[in-house]
């Protein structure tokens, strides 16, 4: 009995030790990651089953193998990577512009009720118009290149980021504000030592919503008018009845969205590790 207990002590294995490091904790929190290959396999099986049973032609529902071939071909020719790069550029540029402006304006709105009352109607009104409806305008103004898509992404990520910034800054504990005042802290010190760390959890929430919306924004823009990008590729392949290529483009978009979301989650886990310990 005792020996077993000692053995158990000695074999406190890698999975327990790994929890001491931040990344280890993150991975442990993501144990459902092991379920992902299983889920993918199930999905493929169902998909293949539907193709066999239904006997659909390739341009209605291509089999997984057809899509894989299409992927290899479009990747090999470099066209898939070229379109992916375009979409990624639009997403990153739009996120950078949208998230920074929304955070800055959100901070000002949170600090200044007067400004908020003045601007709130316009901000809400701008959100009641679907981005698809504004997209043609932006393309008329900024052309079919990546600039118009960048602005569409900016527009779509702006609101959730703005709202979360306002909520995050307003939510800073009033007692902690008073503590900073009792220490004679300046505005900048209150900003860096209190407001930023206190609002970070809410800001990360906004960022998670924003990165997923940014993919939608880029594709919407590319659908309305573009000469490159994964949205453009979908449109083009559809016109040529190249359904396998449509699938390839859709899966690429899914992977981009998942990667962005995962990156934000990982950053959150590292920055906010105090919440887990």
């Amino acid at each position: 009995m005792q020996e077993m207990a000692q053995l158990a002590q000695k074999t406190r294995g890698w999975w327990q030790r790994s929890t001491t490091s931040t990344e280890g904790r993150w991975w442990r929190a993501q144990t459902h990651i092991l379920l992902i290959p299983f889920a993918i396999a199930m999905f493929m099986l169902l998909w293949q089953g539907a193709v066999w049973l239904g006997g659909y032609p390739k341009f209605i529902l291509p089999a997984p193998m057809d899509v894989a071939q299409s992927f290899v071909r479009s990747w090999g020719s470099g066209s898939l990577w070229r379109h992916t790069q375009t979409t990624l550029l639009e997403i990153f540029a739009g996120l950078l512009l949208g998230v920074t402006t929304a955070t800055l304006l959100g901070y000002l709105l949170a600090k200044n009720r007067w400004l908020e009352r003045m601007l709130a109607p316009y901000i809400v009104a701008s959100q009641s118009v679907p981005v698809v409806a504004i997209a043609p305008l932006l393309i008329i103004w900024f052309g079919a290149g990546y600039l118009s898509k960048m602005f569409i992404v900016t527009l779509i990520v702006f609101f959730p980021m703005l709202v979360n910034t306002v909520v995050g800054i307003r939510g800073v504990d009033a007692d902690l504000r008073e503590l900073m005042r009792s220490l004679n802290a300046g505005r900048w010190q209150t900003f860096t030592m209190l407001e930023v760390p206190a609002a970070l959890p809410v800001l990360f929430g906004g960022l998670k919503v924003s990165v997923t919306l940014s993919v939608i924004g880029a594709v919407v823009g590319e659908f309305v008018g573009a000469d490159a990008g994964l949205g453009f590729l979908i449109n083009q392949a559809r016109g040529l009845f190249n359904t396998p290529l449509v699938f390839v483009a859709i899966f690429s978009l899914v992977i981009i969205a998942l990667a962005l979301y995962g990156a934000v989650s990982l950053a959150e886990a590292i920055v906010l590790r105090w919440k887990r310990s």
Partner: protein
Amino acid sequence: MTNDESPILTANHLHKDFPSRRGAVAALEDISFRVNAGEFLCIVGPSGCGKTTLLRLLSGLLLPDRGEVRFKGVPLTEPRAEIGLVFQNANLMPWRTVAENVRLPLDVSGRKETADEQVARALTLVGLSDFAHSHPHELSGGMQQRVAIARTLVHQPQILLLDEPFGALDALTREKLNQQLTDLWRELGATVVMVTHNIREAVFLADRVLVLSPRPGRLTAAIPVEIPRPRRLSLLYDGAFNDVAFRVRQAIE
């Protein structure tokens, strides 16, 4: 005690109003008193009599509508490092470790050369050296409040202003922390002004008890507590102690 009769802090005819729907309501009226260097002064009064407001005035966090607070003869217009304020709740930043929380005042004032030593010393004073790298949510309420006290001590303030610091804790923890607080005060030779609604706590801790009336707060009595120190917990069940406590109780009515 070390009463050298030189006031380190004086309150001269303090008035403070608070806005309400029916116009300004007087929270404090004509409050005057002096705090001697090295003294342990307690201010007692019922809820809502403006105790907390008075303490904020003494710290420079609030300014009076009339009258003035003087620190060593100089009018007080803003918070200063020599006057340390401990709030009702611990007010710790959850994302900072215990040591980092204690370090906050030094980060703000930019005095960082000897920060590590100062933090270590403050933590030793409150007996929390072993918890330097813990986060606040891993500590009990009493420990959190001790971290808050260490944070105030890190600047080596000459006056410690305490706003019912143990009010949210259970009675036994409270007794123990009060005992530790008197030990700390004797060790540091600092001046302490503490606000509380607990009469027995006030009498146990203080050299002098000031009594505030219900709203608007006015000073109604100043009762010296001439019970020798060190005072031990058994004192709480002693006759002389109860006599003073009863006098304070009567002064509140």
